[in-house]
C-alpha cells in the first residue's frame, strides 16, 4: 500500500496568506488516512529527474480529496513549484499515507494539547477538524505560534477562543501582534504553557509540530512544565 505512487490532480489552490497556499488534489482510490499523517510528493522533470518531499495532510480523509498546505521556502526545489507553478488540472504523484506515530485517533477520550509553529499548523488543523466532526468529547487546546497576523493560516477556521465543540484556540504571536491582542509579541515561554500539565483528566497528549528549532524549544518547555516526555509527540519539518 505505502509503496504505491498515486497520480494526484491539482483541483484547486487557495491563498492562506501572502505566501502560503492550500492545494486540493484528487487522487483516485485513495485509501484514506488519519489526522496527523503525511504524504510524499514526487515531481518529475522532462528528463526524468525526480524530486520528493513530505507534506502533511491538512484535513481528515474525505473520499478521493487530499488537502495539503505548502509554505514556499526561498530557493527551495519543490515548495515554490507547488505553491506557485503547478498548473490546475496537472498531476503530481503522491505516496502514503505515511507516519504512524504523529496521529490522533478519534476514539481516544483523553485531553489533547496541540502546539504548532508556522506551517506546523497544517497537520494540527487536520486534528482539529477531525475532533470537530467526531463524537469524541476530549478537551482540545490549540496553541498556534506565528510571527505576525500576515502569516496566519486558516484564519476563518482557527479563531481565538472556545468554540461550541469544546476546542479552545490561542494565537501566540512572536514578532508582531494585532492591536486587540493582550499578550505582547514574543517567543513562546513557560508562561504560555502554564497549567499545560494539569488540565482536567491528567497530562494531555501533546502534538508539537513545526520547524526543528520551534519543536525543540516547545517540547522542552512542555517537559519542564511537568508533562511526561512519553506524552509529547513531535513532527519536525526541517
Amino acid at each position: 500500500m505505502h509503496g504505491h505512487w498515486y497520480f494526484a490532480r491539482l483541483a484547486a489552490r487557495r491563498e492562506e496568506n501572502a505566501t502560503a497556499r492550500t492545494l486540493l488534489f484528487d487522487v483516485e482510490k485513495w485509501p484514506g488516512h488519519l489526522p496527523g499523517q503525511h504524504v510524499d510528493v514526487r515531481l518529475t522533470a522532462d528528463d526524468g529527474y525526480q524530486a520528493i518531499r513530505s507534506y502533511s495532510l491538512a484535513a481528515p480523509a474525505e473520499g478521493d480529496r487530499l488537502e495539503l498546505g505548502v509554505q514556499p521556502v526561498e530557493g527551495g526545489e519543490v515548495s515554490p513549484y507547488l505553491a506557485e507553478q503547478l498548473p490546475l488540472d496537472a498531476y503530481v504523484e503522491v505516496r502514503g499515507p505515511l507516519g504512524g506515530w504523529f496521529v490522533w485517533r478519534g476514539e481516544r477520550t483523553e485531553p489533547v494539547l496541540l502546539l504548532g509553529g508556522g506551517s506546523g499548523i497544517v497537520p494540527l488543523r487536520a486534528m482539529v477538524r477531525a475532533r470537530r466532526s467526531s463524537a469524541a468529547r476530549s478537551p482540545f487546546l490549540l496553541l498556534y505560534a506565528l510571527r505576525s497576523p500576515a502569516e496566519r493560516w486558516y484564519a476563518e477556521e482557527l479563531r481565538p477562543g472556545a468554540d461550541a465543540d469544546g476546542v479552545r484556540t490561542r494565537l501566540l504571536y512572536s514578532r508582531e501582534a494585532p492591536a486587540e491582542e493582550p499578550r505582547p509579541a514574543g517567543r513562546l515561554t513557560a508562561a504560555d504553557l502554564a497549567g499545560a500539565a494539569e488540565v482536567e483528566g491528567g497530562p494531555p497528549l501533546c502534538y508539537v509540530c513545526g520547524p526543528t528549532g520551534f519543536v525543540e524549544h516547545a517540547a522542552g518547555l512542555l517537559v519542564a512544565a511537568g508533562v511526561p516526555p512519553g506524552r509529547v509527540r513531535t513532527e519536525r519539518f526541517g
Partner: protein
Amino acid sequence: MNTLSPGFHGHTRPRSDRLPPGQYPTEQFPVLSAGPTPEVPTSTWEFTLTGTEGERLRTWDWAGFGDLPQEEPTVDIHCVTRWTKWDTSWRGVSVDVLLEGVDTSASHVMAESYGGYTTNLPLADLTGGRAWIVHTFDGLPLPPEHGGPARLLVPHLYFWKSAKWVSGLRLLDRDEPGFWESVGYHMYGDPWREQRNRSD
C-alpha cells in the same frame, strides 16, 4: 503537453552513485525524533551491553568509554525522510570493540536509548567495522537534538536505526520490532532497496 508536474525543472542533478533511490542531498542536518530531546548528563551516562537472558554483560561510564580505542569514520547518512548527507565525520568506538570476546548465539540486537526509544538490527550489521557509538560530530560534542551525548551510527541503514541518546545494546535470540518498526517502519531499513515501510 506533459501533465505530470509540467514546468518542473529541479535543481542540479546529484551524483547518483552515492545517492540511494528517492533521496535528495542536503547540506543541512535535519532532525527526526518522535518526542522531546532527553537531557542526558555525561556524569550519569552509562552504556550497557545486555545478554539474551537480560543479564548485564558489560557497562561503561563516560570516562571508561573515552578510554576505549576511538575511530573517526567519515560516512554518508540517509534519513527515511529522504535527505542524504554526504561525508559526515564522527568520532567514537566501534561496536566490534564493545562486543570483543562476547560469546553469543544472538541473531539480533535491540538498541535502547535514554527516553525510551528502541530500534532493532541484525547483530551482523553491527559488526565488521560497520557500526559505532559516536559522541563527536564534525569535531564538536554531539548536540542533544542529534543524539548527544552519544548515539549509535550505522550508516548503511536508514538513519532511524542509528539510535540517538543510546544507553545500551540488548542481544536478542530473534528479531523484535523497535519503536518506529512497531508503527509501520521497515524491520531492516536498507536505503539502497528503499525499505522505508513494512510493506516495501
